[in-house]
């Protein structure tokens, strides 16, 4: 199986809604060179650059061709990976595989998004384009405008997630109060993470409950922001990791299984056969594969920390279940007991997660990066109170059908 590989350096930028002080190239360089500094290496040492973002949001086609100069691409093998929301997770996998395959001893994975480069608010441009072709197709067939608005736009950014939340609540018995609790926890955690976007010190569920209802069960306070930001990880082979780093975050397992597209329409406006978008078969299988690589038999006992990709609070709960961290339908019970808090038994999204910071291309890479920081003990104020030995980083994207799962640990396999 894979040769031992570890993350030895992490870098990220401050995330905020508009980073107008830098160009997208400079934003990327900020994270890249922070990671190199953290790892104690220079760009000359790097063997391979894996990068990615969602180009529709930035308006530049294949931006790595232009901004490659800012992340050390010239003269090196450079691969661009983009898979929608999972872009960051896929980039992390790319960098990890580059080293695990034995092709390179040092690789970096860089992911970014600069939403403010788009004139349309938030992520609408990019999200619209996912279905643009389908929309152009359906309009001549008399798609009713009312239906279109009702089905796509009621939740504005929420999209299918709002239906997904309803599915989950129905299945598990979770209520809107649980969503408030997750959102409050994430904003509270984010306040301790200097790089996070939506920071709200001591935020309580009651504060979130006061925010405006967008579409039941989602309130304004539940929804992730659209952030500008970049992140970067440095991946090294076993020999180099031991030489360069006191406590590397070792790769134990990784997988990215995809399901059928879940967002109602397939290519050419056909239906899709996924009846319950919170079932997430891809996440279940990815987790199973990653655990088996990592030699984990009982994730509920062995995993100490989770970084879950949760633009919406319901996702934190059901993805934790699908990843095998809780039994199906029980995540909210652990939430009530505070087990997912910083001092709980399974601290979840101590960075604030995607719910607090969402630079789409970079979001899933940040999950991996935060797990690495926790294992290295470098998370600072949001370091978990328990010792983190094994952590799981999750990403989802596409139209809720792509999953990336990465399991990291404090000792090599």
């Amino acid at each position: 199986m894979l040769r031992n590989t570890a993350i030895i350096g992490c870098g990220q930028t401050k995330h905020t809604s508009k980073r107008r002080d830098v160009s997208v190239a400079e934003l990327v360089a900020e994270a890249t060179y922070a990671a190199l500094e953290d790892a104690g290496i220079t760009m000359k040492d790097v063997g391979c650059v894996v990068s990615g973002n969602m180009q529709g949001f930035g308006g530049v086609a294949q931006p790595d061709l232009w901004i490659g100069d800012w992340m050390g691409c010239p003269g090196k093998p450079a691969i661009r990976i983009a898979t929608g929301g999972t872009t960051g997770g896929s980039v992390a996998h790319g960098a990890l595989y580059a080293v695990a395959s034995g092709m390179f001893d040092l690789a970096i994975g860089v992911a970014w998004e600069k939403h403010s480069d788009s004139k349309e608010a938030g992520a609408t441009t990019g999200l619209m384009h996912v279905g643009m072709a389908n929309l152009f197709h359906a309009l001549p067939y008399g798609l009713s405008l009312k239906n279109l608005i009702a089905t796509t736009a009621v939740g504005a950014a929420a999209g299918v997630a709002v239906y997904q939340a309803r599915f989950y609540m129905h299945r598990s018995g979770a209520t809107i109060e649980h969503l408030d609790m997750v959102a409050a926890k994430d904003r509270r955690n984010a306040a301790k993470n200097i790089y996070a976007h939506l920071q709200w010190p001591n935020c309580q569920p009651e504060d979130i409950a006061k925010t405006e209802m967008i579409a039941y069960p989602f309130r304004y306070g539940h929804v992730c922001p659209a952030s500008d930001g970049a992140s970067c990880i440095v991946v090294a082979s076993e020999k180099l990791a031991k030489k360069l780093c006191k406590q590397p975050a070792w790769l134990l397992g990784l997988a990215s299984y995809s399901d059928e597209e879940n967002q109602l329409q397939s290519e050419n406006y056909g239906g899709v056969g996924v009846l319950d978008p919170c079932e997430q078969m891809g996440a279940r299988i990815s987790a199973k594969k990653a655990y088996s690589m990592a030699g984990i038999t009982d994730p509920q006992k062995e995993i100490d920390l989770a970084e879950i990709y949760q633009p919406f609070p319901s996702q934190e709960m059901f993805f934790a279940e699908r990843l095998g961290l809780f039994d199906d339908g029980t995540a909210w019970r652990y939430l009530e007991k505070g087990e997912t808090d910083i001092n709980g038994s399974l601290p979840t999204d101590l960075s604030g997660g995607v719910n607090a910071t969402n630079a789409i291309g970079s979001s899933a890479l940040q999950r991996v990066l935060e797990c690495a920081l926790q294992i290295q003990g470098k998370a600072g104020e949001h370091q978990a109170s328990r010792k983190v030995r094994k952590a799981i980083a999750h990403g989802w994207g596409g139209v809720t059908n792509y999953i990336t799962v990465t399991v990291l640990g404090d000792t090599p396999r």
Partner: protein
Amino acid sequence: METKPDVITVNGIPIVVANFNWSVGFQMEKFLKALATKKILAAKCPECGYIYVPARNRCGKCSAKMEEKDLVEISGKGTLVSYTLAYVALDGKGNWTDLEKPKIIGAIKLNEANSTIFMPLEEIDYPNLKIGMLMEPAWNSETKGGWKDLKYMKPAKA
């Protein structure tokens, strides 16, 4: 298995356009603002000495950081390294349009910098162009602080 050509063409809606406004960052902002005063700023890498136009904050050759102190003003004169005659142009929507009067495009390696810039060439006929010619910028009468302030490049007067 081959499918029968049972497909239809779906056309987009031309008025649907995605608009962008890219932030430029401090080095580039200084560069663009200098263009408004008909000045060209380059950035010289403090490590390897490579000189970039437009000015920027990170060296692609040696990864060194560049700051305001590394900005140098250059004349804009340069050597023609290549040229081409455009018979067609893209209209922004992906269509080729034939140009009534073909346009000359040149690649100019700036004399006081290492970068090559790409500009329209005027005030010279195509057959008279020679690689190695000295070129100089012609500015728009009204400059607004953008790359478009440079109108074209023309042969430099000796």
